[in-house]
C-alpha cells in the first residue's frame, strides 16, 4: 500500500470527519444546553441541502445558494424551536424522541410536497476538477474545499464559544442550566439562538455535501445516527469533543472500510469481502460508541457538572 494511497484515504476521512463535525456541533449544543434529544436534526440538514439546490437552480450562483440556504434554514430552525420544540424541553426524553421522530415524518413529506423527491445540485464548474496537492496526487478540489470550510468553521466556533459573551453563556448553560437560570440569564433567547446556530451548521453541511451525494428526501436519517455516535464519544455539550469525535469516526470509518476490504479479499470472494469490509468498519464505530457508554459515558471531554 503506497503512501499516496494512505494519504488520499486520510484526506477522505478528514472530509467525512469535518462534515460530521458540522452536524454534531449543533446536535451536541442542543443536547448539552437544552437537554433535548432532537431526532429531527438530520431533517434540518436535508432542508439545507434542498434549499441550496433550489436557490442554485433559480439563480445560477452557488454562493447565493449556500448563503440563502444557511439563512433560510436557520430561520426555519428558529421557527421550529419557538413553536413546537420549546414545549419539549420540560418533557422526558421519550417524549422528545417521539415528538422529533414525528417531525422527521412531517418534514420528509413536507419537503417532498414543496420540492419533489429530489433535486440535482452540481458543484460550481470552477471546482469540478482536481488539484495537484503534491506531485503525483490529484485530489478533488471540491473535497478540499469541504475540508477547508470545516477548518474555518471549527476555528470560528472555537472563537465564538471561548471568546464571546454568548459563548460563555452557552458554556454555562451546557454545564449547569439551573444555575444559569438562577443567575438571571434569559435562557429562552439563548436556547433559540443555539438552535438557530445548529440549524445553520446543518445547512452548511447539507449544501457542501449535496454535489457529492444526492439531494433526496430521507437523506438525513443515516447521517443523524453517526452524529449521535460522535457526540457520545466526544461528550455531550462539548464542541471540542464533537470535533475530536468526528475526526475519529471519520477516519476509522473511511480507512477501516478500505483496509478491511483489502484484508478480507485475501480470504473471501470479492463480493463477500466488499460487503463485509465496510459493514465491519461501521460495526467497529458502534462498538466504540458502546464501549464509551459503558466505560466513560460522559465522553472524552466531559462538560456537565
Amino acid at each position: 500500500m503506497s503512501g499516496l494511497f494512505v494519504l488520499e484515504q486520510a484526506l477522505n476521512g478528514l472530509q467525512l470527519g469535518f462534515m460530521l463535525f458540522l452536524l454534531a456541533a449543533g446536535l451536541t449544543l442542543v443536547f448539552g444546553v437544552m437537554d433535548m434529544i432532537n431526532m429531527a436534526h438530520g431533517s434540518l440538514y436535508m432542508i439545507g441541502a434542498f434549499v441550496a439546490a433550489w436557490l442554485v437552480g433559480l439563480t445560477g450562483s452557488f454562493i447565493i445558494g449556500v448563503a440563502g440556504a444557511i439563512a433560510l434554514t436557520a430561520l426555519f430552525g428558529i421557527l421550529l424551536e419557538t413553536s413546537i420544540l420549546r414545549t419539549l424541553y420540560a418533557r422526558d426524553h421519550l417524549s422528545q424522541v417521539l415528538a422529533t421522530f414525528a417531525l422527521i415524518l412531517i418534514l420528509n413529506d413536507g419537503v417532498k410536497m414543496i420540492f419533489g423527491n429530489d433535486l440535482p445540485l452540481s458543484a460550481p464548474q470552477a471546482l469540478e476538477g482536481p488539484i495537484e496537492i503534491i506531485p503525483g496526487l490529484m485530489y478533488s478540489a471540491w473535497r478540499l474545499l469541504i475540508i477547508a470550510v470545516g477548518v474555518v468553521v471549527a476555528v470560528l466556533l472555537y472563537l465564538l464559544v471561548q471568546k464571546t459573551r454568548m459563548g460563555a453563556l452557552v458554556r454555562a448553560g451546557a454545564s449547569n442550566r439551573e444555575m444559569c437560570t438562577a443567575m438571571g440569564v434569559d435562557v429562552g433567547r439563548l436556547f433559540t439562538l443555539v438552535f438557530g446556530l445548529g440549524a445553520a451548521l446543518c445547512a452548511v453541511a447539507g449544501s457542501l455535501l449535496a454535489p457529492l451525494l444526492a439531494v433526496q428526501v430521507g437523506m438525513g436519517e443515516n447521517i443523524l445516527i453517526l452524529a449521535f455516535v460522535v457526540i457520545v464519544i466526544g461528550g455531550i455539550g462539548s464542541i471540542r469533543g464533537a470535533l475530536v469525535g468526528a475526526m475519529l469516526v471519520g477516519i476509522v470509518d473511511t480507512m477501516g472500510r478500505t483496509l478491511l476490504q483489502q484484508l478480507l479479499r485475501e480470504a473471501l470472494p470479492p463480493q463477500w469481502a466488499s460487503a463485509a469490509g465496510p459493514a465491519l468498519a461501521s460495526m467497529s464505530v458502534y462498538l466504540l460508541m458502546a464501549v464509551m457508554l459503558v466505560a466513560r459515558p460522559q465522553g472524552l471531554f466531559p462538560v456537565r457538572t
Partner: protein
Amino acid sequence: MTASKRRPVSTLGKAVLGIAFAGLAVAALAADKVKIGFVSTLSGPSSALGVDIRDAFLLYVKMNGGKLGGLPAEVLVSDDQFKPDVARQLFERNVKRDHVDFMTGVVFSNIMLAALPEAIDNKVIYVSPNAAPSPMAGKDCNPWFFAVSWPNDAYHEAAGEFANQRGLKSVYLVAPNYQAGKDSLAGFKRTFKGQVVGENYTKLGQLDYAAELAEIRAAKPQVLYIFLPGGMGINFIKQFVAAGLGKETMLLLPGFSADQDVIGPVGPAMAGLFNTAHWSPDFTNAANQKFVAEFRKEYKRTPTLYASQGYDDAQLIDATIRATKGNLADKDALRRAMRTAKFDSVRGPFKFNTNQYPIQNYYVRTVGSDGHGGLINKSFNDPILRDHGDAYVQACKMPK
C-alpha cells in the same frame, strides 16, 4: 388509456363483477379490458430509468388508441421508491386486490427478485422491461417470467469482447453488490482475455466513491470498467473526472452508464466514451424511427435504452393478447402465446430463447455530438455479438 391509482372495489360491485365474470369465463369470450400492474422506481437518484420505461410504455398504449391487444388498457402505476419491501407490497396489492392480468415495470434486480413471487406464485405473468438476473435464466427459470430486455450479463460480455478487440490487457472492475452487479462483472470476465487487477463491489445506492477512486488510482489499470446504473453512475463519473483519473485511465462502460440520463447531468466529460448496448437511438428500422420521433414529440427529450425496453414491453403484451384473441382467462395459453408473439421491435430482430430470455445482437456505441450542441449515442453498424443468447440456458428446465 387510463393511468390511475389503485381503486378499491365495493362489495356489491365485486359481487356483480364476480357473477359476470363467471358467466364470461364459461362462455370463454374475450375480456372487456386488460389490467396491467406497473411498479417501478419513480423517485430518487435513479428515477430516470423507471420514468423512461413508464413513459415509453404509456406512449405505446396511447399510440394504440388506449388499447393493448384490442382491449382497453388500464395501467396501474406505482412507485417502489427503490425499496424491495415496498415493491413487494405493491405487487401484492396489484395481484390480490386489483386482480391485474400482467405485472411489469421493475428496474432493479434485487427489488424485482423480492417482489416477483407475488406475481409468479399466483399465475400472473411478469414481463421484465429491465432486470433479468442470471439465476432466472438458468436453474430458477420460471414459465411466468419473461425478459423483454436482455440477459443481465449481455452488455458486459459485449464490452469484454470489445476490450479484446482493442487489445486492452488489464482491467479494474466496479459494480454494485447485488445480483445484477455480480452478473455484470461475471459477464465481462467471461469474454475478456486480459488480466483483472481489481474487482470492487460497492454498496447498492452508494453515492460517494472517494475510497474506491483512491484504490483505482493505486492499482493503475489500463481500462476501468464499471457497471453503475442511474444516479450511482452519474456520481461516479463526475467524481472520477474530479479526481483527475480521466487522464490516466480509459473508462469503458455498458450502455446503462452512458445513456441520456447520465449524459445530461455529467455533461461534456462523456464525449468520446465507448459503451455497449442492444439498442441505439440512431437505428434505422421503421419501428425505431417512429418510436424515437413520437417519444421526442411527446416528452421533449431523446429516449434512453430503458425507454426502448418499455416500448417493446407494451408491444409484446399487445402482440400476446392479439394472439389469444383477447382471452385473458386462460393463463397458460397466454404465456405460451407470449413465447412466440411477433412484433416489430425497435431494436431490430427479436426472439425468445427457450428460457424466455432474448436472443439478439449487441453493438458498440460512442457518445458524440448530436449536431445541436448536445451529446447522443451513435452506434457502429456491425454488431459485436450476433444472435447472442446467454450462458445459463442449459441449466433451465422450462415446463411446457
